[in-house]
């Protein structure tokens, strides 16, 4: 199943991806479906469109929309089959900039996997921090645990594998890399990401409104600081 928005004129503009492709729609029980997309950019475009429709009252606010790496989950649908058909008629809205806020996060780049990352990137361990902090990152989605943001921004050549054996306990605030993502552990938990540093800013604070510091669409810059 393909979803190509006709979007007159959008082909001429090569700047922003205004056409997305739903590669497949998979059922997830009786009240949910998983839309598979070709790229993270398409996931973000579909997620933004779903949010826009919810704000405009075109999609029920009770529908739970959960973006991930290559999928968007739509849960609590009244009629999943009807929604799958409707999804095919969606055309992206005007290519507005993402609604996210800009966040700067100070990081001490002294993680235990700096050496491994440096080797993968072909640079010295003491260069990893500046290299990572030079990139523009964006929150793609939140998953794994409350407030755990999956940030994109690593160039393809800098993708890194997960640890073969996950650590049983990664300290809260650890900054890690896995695949195409950077993440900051909101709380102490097991984890298999390569750790390059630590950030003292609380990612998740139930007393704060909203409790998650980051939300999908936010732009993030890391700032290298000394301990």
């Amino acid at each position, binding site marked *: 199943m393909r979803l190509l928005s006709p979007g007159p004129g959008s082909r001429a503009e090569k700047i922003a991806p205004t056409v997305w492709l739903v590669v497949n729609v*998979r059922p997830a029980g*009786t009240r949910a479906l998983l839309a598979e997309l070709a790229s993270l950019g398409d996931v973000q475009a579909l997620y933004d469109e779903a949010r826009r429709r919810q704000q405009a009252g075109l999609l029920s606010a009770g529908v739970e929309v959960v973006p991930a*790496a*290559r999928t968007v989950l739509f849960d609590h649908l009244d009629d999943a089959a009807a929604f799958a058909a409707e999804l095919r008629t969606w055309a992206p809205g005007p290519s507005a900039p993402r609604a996210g806020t800009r966040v700067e996060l100070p990081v001490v780049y002294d993680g235990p996997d700096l050496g491994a990352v440096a080797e993968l990137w072909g640079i010295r361990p003491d260069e990893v921090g500046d290299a990572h902090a030079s990139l523009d990152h964006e929150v793609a989605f939140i*998953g794994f*645990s409350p407030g755990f943001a999956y940030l994109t921004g690593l160039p393809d050549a800098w993708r890194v594998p997960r640890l073969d054996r996950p650590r049983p306990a990664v300290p809260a605030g650890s900054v890690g890399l896995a695949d195409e993502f950077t993440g900051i552990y909101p709380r102490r938990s097991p984890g298999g990401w390569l750790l390059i540093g630590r950030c003292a800013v609380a990612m998740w604070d139930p007393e704060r409104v*909203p*409790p998650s510091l980051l*939300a999908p669409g936010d732009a993030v810059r890391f700032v290298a600081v000394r301990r």
Partner: protein
Amino acid sequence: MRGSLRVVRSGALTTVQDAGRRGVAHLGVPRAGALDRPAMELANRLVGNEPGAAVLETTLDGVGFVLDTDRRVAVTGAPAPVTIAARPVAFGLAVLARAGELVEVGRADAGVRSYVAVGGGLDVAVVLGSRSTDVLAGIGPEPLRAGASLPLGDVVGRVPAVDFVPYSPPAAALHLRCVLGPRADELTAASLELLASASWTVSPDSNRIGLRLQGPRLERARRRELASEGVVDGSIQVPPDGQPVLFLADHPTTGGYPVVAVVPEPDIWRCAQARPGTTVQFHPEAARSLAG
């Protein structure tokens, strides 16, 4: 008058639960909420509360508490002996507990989780739209501890909608319908057949996050990494060891192992009462076509 509930005996794991959190899964926040929602709603109706008012959810060995004001109390879910000031009272009925009397819910005769509603509901702080404790995410009030005090809401004064509802104890074997997908195609054909024909037993390390099942190993058709994706309540996830996990209220919002089928809502609630050793058999059906 505003009242409070003082915990005398916490039980193995007693938490505050309501209908849970909606609309925050994109922040990584699980739904939480009562595992046996019909039992929670019934307890609330018995004491004249809104069906989604916050209640206590016990785990196997009940709870003991004292109120500082007279309130109606009802216990539903896993059947258990209930006493007020050492006098036996009926399970599944609204009874009056007077200020200072010890309300004691004993060990469940069957099932796992009893629900204790108090007139006015438990008025703990609302976090992200719910008063529920989430054991995975650490959101909401802490599990009960002896000596802790929980505020009660105001009695709304509605006449109870029901006085008594006959209760059927949990069956020895759990037959669960499930809808194939989203990743049923990750299983071998033989394992798909197993899903429909074999049975599993509920493992002792099951909890509010999921029922861990032991039995025949479900095999992947191919070895490949799936990117993390959103998962729904009732998802049957197959980790590398091939022993399925059925996700309950506190499940993580995304996961990287394939979900091969999803148990629909009326059937999920029955999982709340499945003790370790309970036999589980799935009855898969094909999903409605989503093709255009």
